[in-house]
């Protein structure tokens, strides 16, 4: 019976098995050599400048004498791509200072934020000899990667491009290098040109500088200029105006089919926990940045169980009526897409819509977009009583036209930091690279390109309209966009984002979940406020109220 299976067949099968085992051995040996380059392309992810030069149409245009904005100039020559280094860009005069040093910078997969780093890496290498590797991981996992890498002392990275909001969790254990001294000594950085807000708040923690800003982040409101003009409406000054405008345009055709009044991201686990504070802060903070928005400065009690926050919740929920039906599942990428394809009359966002709207590949509303400082409120919170009171010179010293604006510097702006545990030469090289990215010659160009994800943060970037005109903004649009950003930045009542230790738990877990449940109808308004209040109190008690209070005051106290 066994002869039914012929011996030769079994033998063949055995030989095949043997061969297979041999193949595995070879693969294991290859893999064990630990060098995946044996089977794959080299690991450095900095793309060759020639191929990316074609994608970035403005590398040749950086030198101010060029009038043409055609893309062919950059595409035909590879040598031109490397001449973006303006005279002031080089950190030192000695070239190839970092020959032989290799730095690994970790950030999230682009093209936003990572693309300019990858594009300029080779330029930096030519200038200083340091090899630059940009390593990217998914955005949602960046924070954990950094933390686990640093806390287990693996130290695979020399530097990071991260969110300043994460600083308390990274600085306290000592993972980030103190850059204060280097920044002071760095003339090429033109540190004073960086807006005071980013200099003194975003990049510093407890009085020392730990990061170099690469991107300016805060919320503004966008509107369709053509649509509002036709209806004879003015851009929204207060949140009630915002609602009125949204109501008027809900369901109306704005040139691209039936549209929506207002598109705000409300998805859980996305950015909704910032947008609620766009509304709430205008009612909670009126005495200037140092007053703070989230907690009471004496007791560390959350400022969420009061009339102002209640009104904000109601307003936030009401905007849902004038938005897309699936607004509860839209994150900021979706709302930007909706606005840029002409489906929304109003939107709230960081500075990205302004630049994205100019790109014909992503936008249908070029030259139809207006930007304005976040709407405000004519009533503010009396913290002693928890009730709303009318705005006057005492309660709202910084009001304009009786309206208190509180522009929210959400997120803080992507910044570069250096790993304190890296070898010292590598640290110097990493700092030099970050400084290079920040310097006006590079930065001024990058902030005009929508795909870089960098928004303006230097005074010169607001004053000089030329690079903006080069990318196609009309004079009025540039003035309007930059004006709104500058107004927001320069306001004395800017709202600082929460930067106490474990702020993520406060915002992304407690606040975000409660808001999501409120919008979904799982909680009533009062239950929501109570849940946020109790949740925040629980965390504060777990960590230590005095510690958190001291931290909170420290982050606010830095602003002059």
């Amino acid at each position, binding site marked *: 019976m066994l002869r039914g299976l012929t011996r030769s*067949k079994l033998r063949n*099968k055995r030989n095949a098995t043997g061969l297979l085992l041999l193949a595995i051995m070879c693969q294991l040996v290859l893999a064990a050599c630990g060098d995946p380059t044996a089977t*794959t392309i080299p690991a450095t992810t900095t793309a060759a400048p020639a191929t990316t030069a074609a994608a970035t149409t403005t590398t040749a245009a950086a030198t101010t004498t060029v009038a043409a904005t055609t893309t062919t100039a950059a595409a035909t020559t590879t040598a031109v791509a490397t001449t973006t280094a303006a005279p002031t860009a080089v950190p030192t005069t000695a070239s190839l200072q970092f020959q032989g040093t290799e730095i690994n910078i970790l950030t999230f997969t682009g093209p936003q934020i990572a693309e300019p780093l990858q594009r300029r890496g080779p330029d930096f290498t030519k200038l200083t000899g340091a090899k630059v590797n940009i390593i990217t991981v*998914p955005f949602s996992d960046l924070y954990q990667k950094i933390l686990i890498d640093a806390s287990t002392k693996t130290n695979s990275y020399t530097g990071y491009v991260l969110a300043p909001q994460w600083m308390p969790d990274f600085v306290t254990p000592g993972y980030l290098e103190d850059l204060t001294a280097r920044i002071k000594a760095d003339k090429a950085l033109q540190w004073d040109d960086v807006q005071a807000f980013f200099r003194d708040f975003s990049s510093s923690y407890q009085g020392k500088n730990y990061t170099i800003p690469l991107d300016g982040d805060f919320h503004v409101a966008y509107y369709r200029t053509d649509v509002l003009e036709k209806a004879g409406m003015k851009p929204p000054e207060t949140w009630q105006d915002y609602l009125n405008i949204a109501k008027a345009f809900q369901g109306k055709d704005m040139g691209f089919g039936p549209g929506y009044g207002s598109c705000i991201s409300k998805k859980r686990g996305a950015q909704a926990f910032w947008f609620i504070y766009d509304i709430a802060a205008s009612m909670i903070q009126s005495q200037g940045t140092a007053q703070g928005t989230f907690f009471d400065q004496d007791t560390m009690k959350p400022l969420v169980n009061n009339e102002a926050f209640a009104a904000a919740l109601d307003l936030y929920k009401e905007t849902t009526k004038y938005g897309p039906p699936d607004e509860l599942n839209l*994150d900021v990428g979706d709302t930007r897409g909706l606005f840029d394809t002409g489906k929304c009359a109003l939107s709230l966002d960081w500075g990205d819509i302004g630049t994205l709207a100019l790109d014909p590949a*992503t936008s*249908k509303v070029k030259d139809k977009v207006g930007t304005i400082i976040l709407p405000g409120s004519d009533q503010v919170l009396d913290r002693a009583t928890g009730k709303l009171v009318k705005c006057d010179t005492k309660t709202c010293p910084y009001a304009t036209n009786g309206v208190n604006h509180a522009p929210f510097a959400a997120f803080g702006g992507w910044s570069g930091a250096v790993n304190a545990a890296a070898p010292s030469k590598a640290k110097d090289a990493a700092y030099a690279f970050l400084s290079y990215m920040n310097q006006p010659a590079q930065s001024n160009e990058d902030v005009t390109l929508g795909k870089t994800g960098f928004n303006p943060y230097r005074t010169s970037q607001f004053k000089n309209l030329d690079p903006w005109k080069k990318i196609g903004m009309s004079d009025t649009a540039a003035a309007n966009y930059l004006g709104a950003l500058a107004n927001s930045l320069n306001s004395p009542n800017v709202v600082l984002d929460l930067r106490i230790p474990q702020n993520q738990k406060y915002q992304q877990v407690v606040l975000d979940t409660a808001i999501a449940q409120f919008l979904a109808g799982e909680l009533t308004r009062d239950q929501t406020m109570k849940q946020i209040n109790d949740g925040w109190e629980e965390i504060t008690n777990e960590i230590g109220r005095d510690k958190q209070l001291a931290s909170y005051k420290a982050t606010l106290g830095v602003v002059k």
Partner: protein
Amino acid sequence: MRKRLFAKNYSPFKPSPLAAALSYLALGFWALVVLFPIFWLVVTSFKTPIQVDTGPFYLPYIDFQPTLDSWHYILLGDLQNDTFRNYGNTIVVALTSSIIVLFMGSAAAYALVRFNYQPRYATIGLFIVCVGLSIVAVLNGVPWQLAIVAALVIFFLLWQTIGRRFKAALSNNDIAFWLISQRMLPPIATIIPIYVLFQQVGLLDTQIALIIAYIASNLPIVIWLMRDYFQNVPLELEEGAAIDGASRYRIFTSIVLPLSVPGLVATFLFVLVFAWNEYLLALFLSSAKAQTLPLIVAAQNATRGPQWWYMSVLILIMIIPVIIMAIALERFIARGLLVGAVKG
């Protein structure tokens, strides 16, 4: 004259025309359900961002003008190096770990079916106690190499002395259940200890780390699936070979394995797919050099929201090799066992 079961064109069920028509209807419907999302992926990969955002466009050239921008970006543009490096890593890691785990798991499954294990409660208890002791030692500063060796020695000593006194034992089924229960805990809970484990042996960011990790996580599945297929291999064949003088190993490799080819192939496909698509372990055990493809897919969801056009391209290039492998291996699943030929 033995009838070969399920030779390629033989089937006991030759459906009537009506049954065939209904079958095709049902099959066609499900094929549509399966293929439509893939079609949507293909179509999206040829769109520009604005075409994606403006609303559903279904047919290239008719509804919208297709472009190769996304393909260019992924395969030839900025992401090219990342894509090819990750692709290579995925292939090496998935193939290697799948082949190894297949053989390791089959051997264990065979053992669980044919041998009779009786691990004693005492042994297990002692083992856990020693592991616990070594962990406590490590947490208190003892170098881990020393702690592990000491724990092993203590275990061996105690086992030979005290362990012999207690006879209550478990059975094969319990071992099997313990193995499959390894998959019950969500990986998120064990990711940090595993990260530390690999960090201590210096294997972070290497393909080997991923291979080992995937072997460990896929073993239970292989064992459980192969147990069933091995149980269908008749004992007479093995006994006959034993009488002929074959050793246990030869019986396994020459008789049992060839007869279980459909099961082996199906299992191989599973573990390959699991290893190919695994995300969480790859995210943490790799940083620069050993990244795999699922990481870039997930990474397309950046601060601006998911970039559907790039993501579609990446998903498509990810599934093409696996589909080719499935096509090549499908015939082995369908061949059927030669078991029936042996009866009588």
